[in-house]
């Protein structure tokens, strides 16, 4: 007896829809096993992790604050992955966006005007896009693997911001803490509602979801993006340039990551610190795949992964578990999402064998 994967003649629309839910169910099931091994009551632990963060206004606002950058970066990465440009460096582009956008309030604190905030947002996007252009250039010019270059540039960006806030950008009145000066009022992204901390980053995320949903489903550019990923040779036959697409994908996702970075700094933190994000740029990779590389799907996936951050904090406080539990959950989720995607193109069959294994044909 063995399991055999049998290729379907066409993509299964049913499993394309079901696969993320199967993945979530499997993650929850194995999460319960994990909690049991840690000596916690699985039901209570799962409640603490996934349900209780949704029960107060305060934590719902926190969810929006955490989900916004994930969604913003996730939709950008979807465009990258749909076109087979494997940008793993969104975290670095986020950090660079945060740095470039913060130049105004930190280096020119006396320049106070209503144009500061829009300028910061634009500079943040430009910074992230420029940083994303580096792996794109290396890939198109030298054939360098963008997975490696974009990932390595993350560490460069992280060390760069670390150096900045300990060195030249350290707050002169900050008692030598490794932090920049706090932003003046014109440089702070305002809150959307009076009831909590949700800032305009959430609005940016929603706008990005809608804009990219339209781009991908209705425009020639979206068509080009999908072909570049599925059949590059056919893309060339259609008259589309692969290297232009690489730049487009990296610039777009870099700009969105940069916007997420500057929004986080200017909305949630309001100063530059050595660590800009708790790994939003990496978690957004899971968000993109869990959301089926579809902007609407990414919206929900971003909320779920945002919840995993909150649940992790909650589990730390209530159950006394390590904060690494968040990473474990996110890793399991990504694993199951990718595994379940197999079901879209293959069906699983149980085969009785007698004797030797048959060799695949063709």
């Amino acid at each position, binding site marked *: 007896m063995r399991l055999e994967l*049998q290729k379907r*003649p*066409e*993509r299964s629309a049913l499993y394309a829809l079901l696969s993320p839910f199967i993945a979530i169910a499997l993650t929850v099931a194995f999460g319960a096993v994990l909690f049991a091994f840690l000596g916690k009551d699985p039901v209570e632990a799962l409640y603490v992790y996934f349900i209780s963060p949704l029960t107060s206004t305060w934590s719902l606002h926190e969810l929006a604050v955490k989900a916004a950058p994930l969604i913003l970066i996730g939709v950008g990465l979807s465009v990258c992955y749909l076109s087979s440009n494997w940008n793993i460096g969104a975290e670095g582009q986020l950090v660079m966006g945060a740095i470039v956008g913060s130049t105004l309030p930190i280096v020119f604190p006396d320049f106070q005007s209503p144009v500061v905030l829009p300028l910061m947002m634009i500079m943040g996007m430009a910074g992230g896009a420029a940083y994303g252009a580096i792996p794109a250039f290396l890939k198109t010019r030298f054939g360098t693997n963008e997975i490696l270059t974009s990932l390595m540039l993350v560490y460069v960006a992280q060390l760069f911001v670390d150096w900045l806030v300990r060195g030249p950008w350290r707050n002169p009145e900050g008692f030598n803490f490794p932090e920049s000066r706090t932003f003046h009022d014109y440089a702070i992204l305002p809150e959307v509602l009076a009831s909590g901390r949700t800032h305009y980053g959430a609005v940016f995320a929603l706008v990005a979801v809608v804009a990219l949903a339209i781009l991908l489903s*209705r*425009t*020639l*550019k979206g*068509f080009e993006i*999908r*072909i570049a990923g*599925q*059949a590059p*040779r*056919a893309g*060339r*036959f*259609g*008259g589309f340039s692969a290297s232009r697409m690489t730049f487009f994908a990296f610039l777009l996702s870099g700009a969105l990551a940069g916007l997420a970075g500057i929004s986080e700094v200017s909305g949630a933190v309001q100063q530059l610190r050595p660590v800009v994000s708790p790994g939003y740029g990496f978690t957004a990779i899971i968000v993109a795949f869990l959301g089926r590389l579809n902007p609407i799907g990414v919206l929900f996936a971003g909320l779920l992964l945002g919840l995993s951050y909150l649940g992790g904090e909650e589990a730390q406080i209530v159950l006394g578990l390590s904060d690494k539990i968040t990473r474990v959950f996110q890793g399991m989720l990504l694993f199951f999402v990718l595994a379940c995607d197999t079901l879209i193109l293959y069906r699983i069959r149980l085969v009785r064998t007698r*004797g*030797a*294994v*048959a*060799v695949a*044909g063709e």
Partner: protein
Amino acid sequence: MGRDTESSKSGETAAGRLRTGDLLLQAHGITKRFGDILANDKVSIDLRAGEIHALLGENGAGKSTLVKILYGALEPNGGTLSWNGQQVAISSPAEARKLGIGMVFQHFSLFEALTVTENIALALPGRLSLRDLADKIRRVSADYGLPLDPGAIVADLPVGIRQRIEIVRCLLQEPKLIIMDEPTSVLTPQESDQLFETLKRLTDEGCAILYISHRLEEVQRICHHATIMRHGKVVMECDPALETPASLARMMVGADIKDITREASSATEGEDRLAIVDLSAPADGPFSVPLKSIHLQVKAGEVVAIAGIAGNGQGELFDVISGERLSDRADAVLIDGAPVGRKGINARRRAGAAYVPEERLGHGAVPGLKLSENIILTRHATRDGLVLSGFLDRGKAEELEKKLKADFDVRMSHDNPEARSLSGGNLQKFVVGRELDRNPGVLVINQPTWGVDAGAAASIRQQLIDLARAGSAVLVISQDLDEIFEIADRIAVISRGELSAAEAAEKMTRERIGLLMGGHAGEAGKAAEGRATHAA
């Protein structure tokens, strides 16, 4: 499938030569099911020693499935196999080889970076000395008239020689039955003749050969017996010597194939619609062929064919003509007199050209996209109104899809499916129809009917001729000489990136094309004068 009423269980046997050889492999009632499809439905076949047995059928008739079962690569759902009268279960290719069954595949399984000896050593069981093996290869290959240099690197060898390696590899295992899948599809006529000599020698020694081919003339010439399959069943057995290619084709298709009608081109003095002027292109990869100073004109009203063996620069030539790769000079490619050598494929399409590449899936069409979206792929920039200020008009693309489906008889299980779910022939009808529907002034098509069943092939060929006669220029790149003689007004031959001058089809002979294919332009000249010599 259910509509077939012929007695297909055992197949009718027409009169013919008496089959005298000993029964070697007998398959009885072989059934193989893939999901809902019966690929083999109670197929029976007898293979006898000393006999070349042809297995004929259209694409999808179940030939490959049957062969894979005989070679142990697939497990049947039902039926029995007997070898020398003893019932056997062939559960793996290794077991098949142990019995004495060898196979020469259509697509070579050779490592290009290794030598001939190393490639062969990889396929043989046990540990062996490479030096002894090299000697053996030299001896056996010379013995059978297929000389090989054991030390040569495969990457340096032409396709015909690579096939020799496969055959010699098979012979070294001293098989009693050799299965050959389309062995001549990559050979020049001369190389094919050489292969037939070898096959004759093998059968004289008592070896049985199961021979799969689409080339009916060839089957008629060399095969002693033929089994014809259709829709997974054996429909007929016959002696091919008593049949004509047309009657064999009829049995394969189950209906008459329409003859192609071709009036002589009236406009051979027409204007050049497509001109290629001194076009050269360096190789753009380790396995790519450089193009050397190519000249060619295709006039309004004519079909020009480029013959040649695979891998002699056809794909590279197609890419530069289509604009997927740009030339150095704008005037290297002219469409209706306009220099387009530096322009991309969409600019050339707007100038009136259309292109159909060799590979349907992955080049001509995106496998995972619906047909309507695949129409957008090549027509988004051709003023068909499929894109309005950057936005797709999907409704219009779907209308076009319905129109193509009706106009070009593209058969599909449900409306507007993904390209990958179409059979080869239907997908080819679609990608050809997609371009013909634009009524292009210039059509360049690479391997128009490769792997396409006979019925679809005939209709595509007819459409190409009709397009030319309506005043367009049609350039066909093909490896199929029968096809070329059927449709071309003028023929050129490509060999190692060089193109011979196009000559009127009536003046071309198979032998001359064969010599040009081998790059023997001088000898080809002599052959044209009637003093035929055999190519070395």
